């Protein structure tokens, strides 16, 4: 007993303090367990919005403006999020919402929610997202806003869809494009775990796609968690326990936990195309990707682009999007590297003080009539 108490220079007369520490630890554990059990119903995406259009599973929302009409910007901004997770990461909770921030800066914000695919969507591919759904959504936004130009913001795979659209429609209505963590050049990050896992030497793509149909969200979630297994499966919960006495930190954790575990299935053909054409074939760069009979050529894109990458991104290594400026035809390309991870780039501690004002100012400067 005496030996145990001497560990780490423990003073045996501090027993009352140790008991208090023990009670604190117990309390933290209780709060943390409650937080975990309630996180799936934690309220997220609370900024008021209205659905202005829907097509099959897709929903197009317009956020209710927060500034008087004379202070609003004339060019609407459409948020294009990835097809494998829910877009409320951009509107996580009041005070921690990119959408809220942009509304306060006078932007007219629209959001595409791709929806959860059903079995009938197994043939939906990137071509459909870039050449069928996005153009229609853009047309609806323009009609709703009474505008003839639009700003786009793509995040993760959403930025690939936005880039594809911009390449297919060089004379289209897109005035400016912001891409966040865009996985453009798959050959640039040789250490990407996804590339290793999906290597054709062992990963039988057709067998998986034909056997599974749409890729279940649990597969996607597990793969994402396995990129950093200890940090995600253990560290995340320890981090909650450490901050359990701070209600705001607990709420923040719950919102993020809900987002991480609230994914959606990926249409079978989208997954097949992603692995075959992009991860293995790097088709966006090799010029081998043909959409509706037209080859995607990034050099066709001449609009201003803000390319934001995350230095510690383990899902889309920053090298994959670092050289976007050399790949597109635009003369006005600004590249910003944020000291954050893939998700932290939008909702981390630097987001509100750096990324959100940067995006607002960048769009603002380039959206003058």
């Amino acid at each position, binding site marked *: 007993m005496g030996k145990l108490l001497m560990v780490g*220079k423990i003073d045996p007369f501090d027993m009352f303090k*140790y008991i208090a*520490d023990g009670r604190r630890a117990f309390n933290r554990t209780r709060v943390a367990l409650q937080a975990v059990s309630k996180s799936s119903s934690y309220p997220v995406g609370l900024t008021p919005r209205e659905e202005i259009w829907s097509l099959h599973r897709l929903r197009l929302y317009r956020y209710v403006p927060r500034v008087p009409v004379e202070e609003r910007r004339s060019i609407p901004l459409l948020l294009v999020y990835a097809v494998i997770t829910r877009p409320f990461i951009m509107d996580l909770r009041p005070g921690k919402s990119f959408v809220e921030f942009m509304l306060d800066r006078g932007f007219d914000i629209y959001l595409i929610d791709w929806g959860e695919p059903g079995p009938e969507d197994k043939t939906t591919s990137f071509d459909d997202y870039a050449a069928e759904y996005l153009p229609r959504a853009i047309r609806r936004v323009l009609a709703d806003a009474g505008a003839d130009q639009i700003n786009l913001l793509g995040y993760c795979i959403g930025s690939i869809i936005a880039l594809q659209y911009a390449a297919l429609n060089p004379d289209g209505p897109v005035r400016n494009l912001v891409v966040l963590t865009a996985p453009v050049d798959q050959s640039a990050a040789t250490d990407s775990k996804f590339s*290793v896992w999906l290597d054709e030497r*062992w990963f039988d793509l057709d067998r998986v796609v034909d*056997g599974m149909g749409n890729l279940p969200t649990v597969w996607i979630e597990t793969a994402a968690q396995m*990129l950093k297994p200890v940090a995600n499966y253990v560290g995340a919960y320890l981090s909650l326990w450490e901050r359990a006495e701070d209600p705001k930190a607990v709420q923040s954790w719950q919102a993020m936990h809900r987002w991480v575990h609230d994914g959606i299935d990926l249409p079978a053909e989208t997954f097949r195309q992603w692995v075959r054409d992009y991860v293995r074939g790097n088709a966006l760069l090799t010029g081998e990707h043909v959409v509706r009979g037209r080859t995607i050529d990034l050099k066709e894109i001449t609009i201003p682009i803000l390319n934001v990458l995350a230095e510690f991104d383990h899902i889309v290594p920053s090298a994959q999007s670092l050289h976007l400026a050399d790949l597109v035809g635009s003369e006005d390309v600004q590249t910003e590297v944020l000291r954050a991870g893939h998700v932290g780039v939008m909702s981390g501690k630097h987001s509100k003080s750096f990324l959100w004002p940067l995006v607002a100012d960048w769009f603002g400067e380039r959206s003058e009539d």
Partner: protein
Amino acid sequence: MSSEEPTTSGPLEVLREASARALDVAGQVAEQFVASEGFSSVVSRAANAVLDIVTPLRRGVNQLAETASEWTNIPTRGQVVELASRVNRLELILDDLDVKTDEVLKLLDGEVADGRQD
């Protein structure tokens, strides 16, 4: 107690520091492990083995369900999925039609406005 000694050196603090160090090391080792070709190969083989069992089973169950649906004269899953796909395609066609209607209305509005000016 001298001022140089840590003030929060209770058993929990010691445990916490030790676990943080252990987690750091375990995290690095685990990341290297999951990035290895051996891990990828084993996981893929396991997935293939699961699919080898699950796919025929699922096919069999689907076949059984289809047969049962036919006997009881209710739509099969395949038919419902096919119907949903057709509705989806129909939605796209209707949306195209909507675009064309808007264009026609715009042209008509323009002509009406021109007529008023004349």
